[in-house]
């Protein structure tokens, strides 16, 4: 089974139909274990129970960037290899990535309120994640602005790749801007290394959320393929001369 075999949407549909229940089950099990471990994790001596927001926040933040990577690979697939499923993958990934980014922002803001005393801080990390969220929304707007999927796919692929080139530059400039404006930041990430009691649940949750992404992504791709078939059938129906 290679990537080329999957180019046939029917084969893709039948394969995913077999794989998806297992994936969904594995996701549920890993997430349940992760949630149990997170609930059982000890409170931080400084942050108390709020530290547990981390178990949701960090996997979402990591996926917010990972999904853009997936979309960039799909964009290459669209532009270079013209893989028929690449644009389906890219289109299906965008709203999921936006949702993960949004959750990362919301959980981060809820974590920020008790820790820093404010929901929003113009911290470098927060700002660049917010810009990432804006770029996801722009991409979704582009997908929704055009009714012809293959035309929208190529435009979105170019925008995704330009975004992938630009995101490191944006990250760098926001970091620079931030150190200029507030030298002593409230946030000290990566300062004290994580204790094992926190690290293991965090890794389990990261795996669980990654599985969740794969499951949702495959399901969304199936939906997109079926939606395109319905659209093609409707077009055929409409163009049929009235008998």
């Amino acid at each position, binding site marked *: 089974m290679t990537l080329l075999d999957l180019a046939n949407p029917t084969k893709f549909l039948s394969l995913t139909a077999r794989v998806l229940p297992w994936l969904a089950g594995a996701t549920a099990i890993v997430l349940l274990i992760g949630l149990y471990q997170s609930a059982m994790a000890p409170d931080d001596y400084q942050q108390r129970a709020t530290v547990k927001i981390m178990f949701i926040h960090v996997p979402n933040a990591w996926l917010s960037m990972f999904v853009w990577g997936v979309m960039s690979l799909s964009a290459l697939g669209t532009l270079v290899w013209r893989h028929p499923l690449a644009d389906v993958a890219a289109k299906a990934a965008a709203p999921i990535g936006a949702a993960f980014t949004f959750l990362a922002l919301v959980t981060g803001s809820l974590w920020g309120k008790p820790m820093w005393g404010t929901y929003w801080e113009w911290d470098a990390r927060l700002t660049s994640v917010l810009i990432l969220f804006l770029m996801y929304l722009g991409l979704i*707007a*582009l997908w929704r602005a*055009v009714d012809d999927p293959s035309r929208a796919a190529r435009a979105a692929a*170019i925008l995704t790749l*330009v975004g992938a080139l*630009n995101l490191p530059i944006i990250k760098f*400039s926001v970091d620079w801007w931030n150190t200029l404006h507030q030298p002593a930041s409230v946030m000290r990430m990566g300062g004290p290394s994580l204790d094992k009691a926190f690290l293991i649940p965090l890794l389990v949750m990261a795996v669980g959320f990654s599985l969740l992404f794969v499951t949702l992504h495959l399901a969304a791709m199936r939906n997109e393929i079926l939606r395109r078939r319905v659209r093609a059938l409707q077009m055929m129906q409409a163009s049929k001369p009235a008998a």
Partner: protein
Amino acid sequence: MTALAALIRRDIKIALRVGGGALIGVLFFLTVTVLMPFAIGPDLALLTRLGPAILWLGALLASLLTLDRLFTADHDDGSLDLIVMGRTPLELACAAKALAHWLAAGLPLVIATPVLGLLLNLDASATAAVALTLLVGTPALTFTGMIGAALAVTLHRGGLLLAVLVLPLSIPVLIFGVAASQAAISGPLSFGTPFSILCALSLVSFVIGPFAAAASLRHGLD
């Protein structure tokens, strides 16, 4: 080479003649700058502090406003198809079009800056700093904006979509443009560091912009 020169000459001519609308950008720039004191208040000291940021925001919005014209007129009358099919590499043709667009719509913004600096109570050195950063930074805005313009023209959707796609990409230019101007006026940092990064951003956009715009035109126009 002659083809590119002819393309640049033609684009500038069209932009400057009646209906070209290149100078509307400058008028918009002026209007936005005049609006700011109404929102902020006529406090001259405050305006001096915010001046570089206001000028940069105004220039960013003005260049965004004119971007729509980069490809749409040529697409409407069919000359864009000729450019795409021509023997000149499309990347170079895109770069030439962006250069012409900058000369007609971007450079006037830089020239107007000293006058607007007077309105915002900026002294001569501060105005010179802002004008210099705009001179280096506006080409980056045009060349990255060109990607959005090319996408918009292939999708037959301009306006708001273009703005939403282009604005996040111009954040680095805005950050370093304002930082360099502030550094020249008051900042603890030296002017050189942010200014050279701004130059670097422009140079990067000269490479990425034409290639991405050409790819988008080639894939999109069929």
